[in-house]
């Protein structure tokens, strides 16, 4: 890694740190109801929905509203995919999506996963992309943020029965935050070169007289929200590596910033809403430290040239360029890979499948930790708060006191719910992954240990609602399309429901003042404990599988064994 690469990584970190209080403050004002300049647009929406905006919901009603909304959204996307061949805005004439892929995709976008078992330019009409997939990009992001906000309210309130109103939280999140930011970003992207049109694909005759059909579409508008909402589903198959989705180093920086912006900002929103900003920064610090370690490892691994290729006569100066774009190079590919899997975004600007074994290990571990290193919008914060509950519980066991967090006694009910949420990732990845491995091993493209990495990555990505892939994996087989769909639903809602239950039970508790025996949760000691719990509980579960996949591949490759 050259000095410029390191500088680009530092710049990126500085941008995220600088923007966190800005985004955090705005979202705090938004969800405390202090922003009202769009009230004129909110009121008719609530009236249409039959919602009284001032009436808040018990956590269970909040969960029901959320589940109903996500169910309807999934069905809407499924319908559009199956019917697109008869609907307008389909100049490329793509056919109806097959039932299993349509199910997989509908679930994928509704759960903020954006796993893509299809190639955008060959499978989806403009209408499906816009009115189906992009809509879910907005609302699945807003859903995640709503859950996080409900949980924050749970900790901020005391002796309360309600955690907020789902319809109001979702609507306000879209109107005040996602829509305006996406709109400006989309225009910036067009300026830089991302297409935005409804044209038919354009036939070109190249300088050597070869026919080249150039895909078009409303790319910029989709790209903007895809990054902002930690969605990650590309308009094109190659995602943000495609020059139309991510044309310049400048768009790359902006898109990478939006990968983490809202997730990082929410830590500060949390601090502000619970009335002690240090609490937010402590969580930010735990996330940030893990991020720095991950990005450093990825950048170092990718700046190594593949020894199997240098032996053949390839230059070793640059590093591993297979599956990377020249305009981004090693540093930007490593930052993106780390950020997109730290968040549950899953967009890519380089192909993770072709990363060096240890370079590919980083995104895999990021996902397996439960995507709590900033994480998906909302999902990262509530995932990390689940680990916080576990951390204070463990700390309480060590000193023999009832654990508390922010003045709330953490009791058996909360710890049980937290453990339920934490078990989701191992169950989804190892359980469903094992079924896939036994029932359909032919989906694995790569021979040798890399094949196991591909499968592990696929089920980690689906359960973690990430959406990136070791893309050689044959995810489009009916078996995998369905199993992955199940993993995505499980990974999303089997976490959300316990989290909302924690929110409800925390809200109902009284606040007790801190005493001499209270573990302060804003200091270095707590940050260290939180990281340790995350790594041990979240990561160690997968150590055997990781040893058999990327680690063995690394050792084999550098001792000259190919597969």
């Amino acid at each position: 890694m050259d000095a410029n690469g390191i500088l680009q990584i530092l710049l990126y970190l500085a941008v995220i740190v600088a923007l966190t209080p800005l985004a955090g403050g705005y979202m705090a004002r938004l969800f405390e109801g202090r922003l009202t300049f769009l009230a004129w647009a909110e009121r008719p929406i609530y009236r249409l929905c039959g919602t009284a905006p001032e009436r808040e919901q018990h956590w269970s009603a909040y969960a029901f509203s959320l589940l109903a909304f996500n169910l309807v959204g999934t069905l809407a996307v499924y319908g559009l995919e199956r019917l697109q061949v008869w609907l307008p805005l389909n100049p490329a004439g793509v056919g109806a999506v097959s039932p299993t892929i349509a199910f997989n995709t509908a679930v994928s976008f509704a759960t903020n996963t954006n796993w893509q078992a299809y190639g955008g330019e060959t499978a989806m009409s403009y209408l499906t992309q816009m009115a189906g997939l992009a809509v879910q990009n907005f609302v699945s992001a807003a859903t995640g943020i709503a859950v996080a906000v409900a949980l924050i309210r749970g900790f901020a309130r005391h002796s309360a029965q309600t955690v907020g109103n789902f319809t109001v939280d979702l609507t306000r999140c879209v109107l005040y935050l996602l829509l305006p930011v996406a709109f400006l970003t989309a225009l910036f992207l067009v300026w830089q070169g991302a297409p935005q049109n409804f044209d038919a694909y354009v036939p070109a005759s190249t300088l050597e007289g070869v026919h080249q059909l150039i895909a078009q579409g409303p790319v910029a508008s989709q790209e903007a929200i895809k990054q902002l909402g930690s969605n990650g589903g590309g308009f094109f198959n190659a995602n943000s590596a495609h020059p139309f989705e991510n044309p310049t180093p400048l768009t790359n920086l902006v898109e990478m910033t939006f990968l983490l912006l809202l997730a990082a900002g929410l830590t500060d929103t949390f601090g502000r809403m619970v009335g002690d900003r240090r609490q937010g920064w402590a969580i930010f610090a735990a996330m940030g430290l893990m991020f720095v370690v991950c990005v450093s490892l990825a950048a170092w691994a990718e700046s190594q040239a593949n020894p199997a290729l240098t032996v053949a006569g390839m230059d070793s100066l640059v590093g591993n360029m297979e599956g990377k774009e020249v305009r981004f190079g090693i540093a930007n590919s490593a930052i993106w890979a780390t950020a997109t899997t730290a968040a549950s975004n899953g967009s890519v600007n380089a192909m993770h499948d072709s990363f060096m074994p240890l370079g590919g290990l980083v995104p895999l571990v990021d996902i397996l930790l439960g995507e709590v290193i900033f994480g998906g919008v909302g999902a990262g914060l509530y995932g990390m708060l689940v680990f916080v509950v576990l951390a204070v519980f463990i700390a309480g066991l060590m000193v023999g006191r009832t654990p508390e967090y922010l003045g709330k006694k953490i009791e058996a009910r909360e710890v049980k719910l937290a453990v339920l949420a934490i078990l989701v990732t191992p169950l989804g990845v190892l359980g469903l992954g094992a079924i896939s491995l036994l029932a359909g091993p032919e989906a694995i493209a790569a021979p040798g240990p890399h094949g196991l990495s591909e499968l592990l990555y696929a089920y980690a990505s689906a359960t973690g609602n990430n959406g990136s892939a070791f893309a050689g994996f044959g995810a489009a087989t009916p078996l995998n399309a369905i199993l992955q769909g199940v993993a995505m639903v499980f990974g999303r809602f089997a976490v959300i429901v316990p989290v909302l239950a924690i929110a409800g039970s925390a809200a109902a508790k009284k606040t007790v003042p801190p005493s001499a025996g209270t573990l302060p949760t804003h200091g270095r000691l707590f940050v260290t404990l939180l990281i340790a719990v995350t790594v041990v509980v979240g990561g160690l579960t997968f150590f055997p599988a990781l040893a058999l996949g990327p680690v063995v591949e690394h050792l084999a490759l550098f001792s000259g064994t190919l597969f």
Partner: protein
Amino acid sequence: MISHLRSALVLTLVMTALTGIAYPFAVTGIAELAFPRQAHGSLIERDGKVVGSALIGQAFSGPGYFHGRPSAAGQGYDAANSGGSNLAPSARALAEAVRARIAAERAANPGERGPVPADLVTASASGLDPHLSPAAAAWQAARVALARGLAVEEVRALIAARTEGRTFGLLGEPRVNVLALNLALDERRPMR
């Protein structure tokens, strides 16, 4: 439960209208007025015919053109089917493909002795990478100059003129747009 579903249905319709219809059409409208060239894919026309997009790479095989990176998009540079090779670093298939490309580049550029620049023999992520590193372009300068009947210095000067540095001297990597470079070559000394 019924009221939850009704509310969910209406909210989905409202959000579809807002974020799925109004938003993309508004962006399209403004883009059309403010950035019409980019909005339609930065197409390049020569003699009234579309020869490609400034952002999308295309296949070059003749000795008189600079060759771009190997492409795994469709049958190569298929701009309606993007993608990378997704080969594992430990895949024998990758090592064999790169070995063959190195042999081909060495045969096509007999004057060059050193190791072949990495980007010239590895497939890009999109399969549509429009760029080469300056080193990979320089590697082909002698061959192109010979095929075009130009002085090597002249071709090197063309590369230098078409080399884009890092944005603000910091972001991204230095690069040369292969299509732009080849268009400039055609302008200087057309292929017969």
